[in-house]
């Protein structure tokens, strides 16, 4: 087999920004859409079949770094720039392709063939998870060089924690939208970041409703798992 060595897809734009740190330093973090980069990165990897855990690791590390850069700017009270206005031009309505029916080749056999695989990975899991896991990775590994930043955060975390204890009295729970009701946009973002740190330290629990996107906050660990029927 003739092997022509091709650059892996992630060294091409736009993903290369996650793998070339020197470029990262020259950019404003506000110009980088982490969610878009990571989503398309994963999609591309799945599509091409080039599953590379090292690359994923580096991508995650770089995203955390970009995220940290953004957080730092916010804590310095620097307003993020407004999103660029799209150029105006006549936008025609979508051009719908003529509809054609096509028979598909998937049968019940295909469905059951793949089922075996899935059941194997199900067996590797604990039957029911006890508590919800945090979505974000621990920031602790990327922070050691920023002591001042940490001190600042700890102070503000304490303040927010006190405020939360005050607010959840009685119901034991508060919605994020209620918490930030009277805050400016920037204060709200800072509060959100602090909440993530509090959750990381297991001082509060966060839960997001996938449909309304509302975030619920409780003090301490909340055993939501208990409410669910065992499957």
């Amino acid at each position, binding site marked *: 087999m003739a092997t022509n060595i091709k650059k892996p897809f992630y060294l091409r734009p736009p993903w290369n920004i996650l793998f070339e740190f020197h470029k990262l330093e020259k950019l404003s973090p506000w110009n980088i859409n982490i969610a878009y980069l990571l989503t398309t990165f*994963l999609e591309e990897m799945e599509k091409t079949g080039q599953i590379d855990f090292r690359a994923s690791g580096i991508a995650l590390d770089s995203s955390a770094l970009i995220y940290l850069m953004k957080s730092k700017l916010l804590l310095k009270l620097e307003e993020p720039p407004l999103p660029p206005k799209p150029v105006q031009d006549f936008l025609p309505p979508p051009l719908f392709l003529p509809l054609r029916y*096509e028979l598909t080749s998937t049968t019940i056999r295909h469905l*059951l063939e793949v089922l*075996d695989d899935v059941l194997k990975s199900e067996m590797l899991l604990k039957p029911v998870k006890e508590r919800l896991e945090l979505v974000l990775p621990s920031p602790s590994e990327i922070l050691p060089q920023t002591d001042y930043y940490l001190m600042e955060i700890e102070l503000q975390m304490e303040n927010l924690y006190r405020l939360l204890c005050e607010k959840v009295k009685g119901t034991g729970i508060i919605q994020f939208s209620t918490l930030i009701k009277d805050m400016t946009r920037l204060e709200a973002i800072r509060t959100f970041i602090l909440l993530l740190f509090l959750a990381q330290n297991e001082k509060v629990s966060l839960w997001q409703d996938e449909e309304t996107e509302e975030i619920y906050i409780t003090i301490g660990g909340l055993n939501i798992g208990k*409410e669910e029927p065992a*499957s």
Partner: protein
Amino acid sequence: MEKKSPPVDLKTQPQTADGKAINELALVEAALYVSGRPLTISELCSVLKTRSQRKVKNIVKRLIQEYASRNTALEILELKDERYVLQLKAEFTPHVRKLVKRPLLSIGPLKTLAYIALRQPVPQKRVIEVRGHHAYGHIKLLKEMGLIASERKGRTAVLKTTDYFADYFGLSHDIPTMKRELRKILEKDRASEKTVESSEL
């Protein structure tokens, strides 16, 4: 020619851009053709913008007769629960099977679908645990395709397959029966696999 459309129902009658009324028989045919699955009377009512189920039934019956009278590879069938489907006549399948190449789904989403089918009703959280974070995308796709639906149970989203899923794979609409059917085929498959393995030794 264009002026001959009758002055009834002009507001609700489906029309083309130049105001010509679209033939209702052809509209039902269009609906059955693009959906590629059995449609209920009420789905057809909605396409024809009418509430009269009787009217729709009449139109479909005429279309069925029209198809039956022609020498065509396609047929329209009435299923037992008053659903209608346009499909290839069975005798043509062997001659054109080699042209059918596109799978319904790629492997990833198909695995997620198989898991939901066997474990339904299953919390979305559990599906993600078993199948990984990519399954969020799979679930979205499967919902868009009408193969699964989600229900809220308190704070949890619970997933199950739809009637369309059952129709596509020729399974029962009753969930417990369907799961039994799936398990049976799965066990049979495993048993015959073992036979093959042992006879290969």
